[in-house]
């Protein structure tokens, strides 16, 4: 098996799967052509991530990365949640195979998109976010 036990655990028993009907922040990244789509739903109350759920189309590490990302930001302040990095997701999963690192990038991006989506709907200023263009190009070509 190429995956760590942690990855397999989050793949076999993903946390926070589903949709939040009254979500106030949604972030979707990826596309079906590349073979992975991640959609993160946030319910933010008083600057806290009260609830978070995900839907993912993708491989084992994409599903595990989504699951881990939701666990890492649940109950945190928006400022804390914003500091989530792909490295943190991968480390929390006890590592991902090099070829699968882009899955953790997708998780980071989906969370950031969802947070900014919330900030727009709440009339707040967008936070600056730089997408990992290099990894995308490396994985999916240009």
């Amino acid at each position, binding site marked *: 098996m190429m995956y760590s036990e942690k990855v*397999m655990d989050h*793949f*076999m028993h*993903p946390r926070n*799967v*589903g*949709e939040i009907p009254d979500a106030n922040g949604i972030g*979707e990244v990826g596309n*079906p*052509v*590349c*073979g*992975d*789509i*991640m*959609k993160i739903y946030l319910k933010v109350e008083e600057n806290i991530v009260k609830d978070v759920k*995900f*839907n*993912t*189309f*993708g*491989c*084992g590490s*994409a*599903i595990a990365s989504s699951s881990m990302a939701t666990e890492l930001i649940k109950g945190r302040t928006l400022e804390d949640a914003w500091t989530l990095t792909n490295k943190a997701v991968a480390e929390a999963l006890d590592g991902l195979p090099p*070829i*699968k690192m882009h899955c953790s990038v997708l998780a980071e991006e989906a969370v950031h998109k969802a947070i900014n989506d919330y900030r727009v709907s709440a009339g707040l200023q967008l936070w600056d976010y730089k997408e990992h263009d290099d990894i995308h190009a490396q*994985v*999916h070509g240009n």
Partner: protein
Amino acid sequence: MSGRSVYLDYAATTYVKPEVLQEMLPYFNVNFGNPSSLYSISSVTQRAIDRSRERVAGAINAEREEIYFTGCGSEADNWALKGVAFANRRRGNHIITTKIEHHAILHACEFLESNGFEVTYLPVDQYGFVDPDELERAINERTILVSVMFANNEIGTIEPIREIGAICRNRKILFHTDAVQAVGHVPVDVKDMNIDLLSLAAHKFYGPKGVGALYIKKGIKIDNLIHGGGQERGKRAGTENVAGIVGLGKAIELAVSEMELENLRLSGLRDRLITGLMKIPHSRLNGPKGFSRLPGNVNVCLRFIEGESIILLLDSMGVCASSGSACTSGSLDPSHVLLAIGLPHEIVHGSLRLTMGSGTTDEDVDYVLEVLPGIVDRLREMSPLWKEYLREEIKV
């Protein structure tokens, strides 16, 4: 992990049959003499190799002197392409192959392109068939070699080899076929089918890994790929893998003798599995139905979900399967075969290949049909594409 174990990846590799292993064993420790040596214990190994060569020749209707042992199927493919191309480059520099070949052919062709050769990659139809007329139209005055696989490893399509062989014979162009998935599974006759070169590998028909063969019709000009000692009549250097060669010979003889009955049995299992899988909503069969499909091959696409996830969940239920999904290949490129039959990327990502063989039973088919629908539901339940489809945002 469930207690059950169902191996459905026979196209990837097979186990070694006990009678094959039995015949190989003495050549590891008792009859270990180097076949090239002069003392008498080496004549035993030399005779064993000759006997194996006869068995291989008999299985494909070739002559004994036309069989050359190699280290694997990929070596046989590389040798055929590079050896013929370089030996015949005064006659021309054009090679015709297909878009659905194994990478051993495709990457060897890319190498030849970087060395001044031109390669035409023929398209295939929606079932994976090459059109012989289109192949004939692709021939020009510089064409020296045609290489078309006998049967496709992913979707099981059996190509019109006899027709292609006849065209090549008429146009005086050499014809190679990668028959790694076909030999031992469907009838192969190099004389009747006008085949000039043919690759095969032992581990696809219950022989050991690490040994293959190239059939080279007498009189064909081909350069060596492996240079060194005088083994294989000076055409393929390297001390012979004697036990492997013995295993290949036994396995091919066994496979051919059991072929007719085994084909009937496997195609019955195959068709039952296909019928069952087609009951899963939004599933599609890849490749043809009936006699022009390898008896043990099933390949389907399951929409809105991704192949690696399916494989991992199947594995957790004890089922070994494979996928043409990008995520399982290690290269992140989705199956070139499924793209070549016209499927869009997003559908290719949800492909599943189940290949059956000697150990596959009716109960195995039942078991897969019992567990797979639940796995598909579970993955669709967390797929945003499925949710969009349910909300009618995606049309099918």
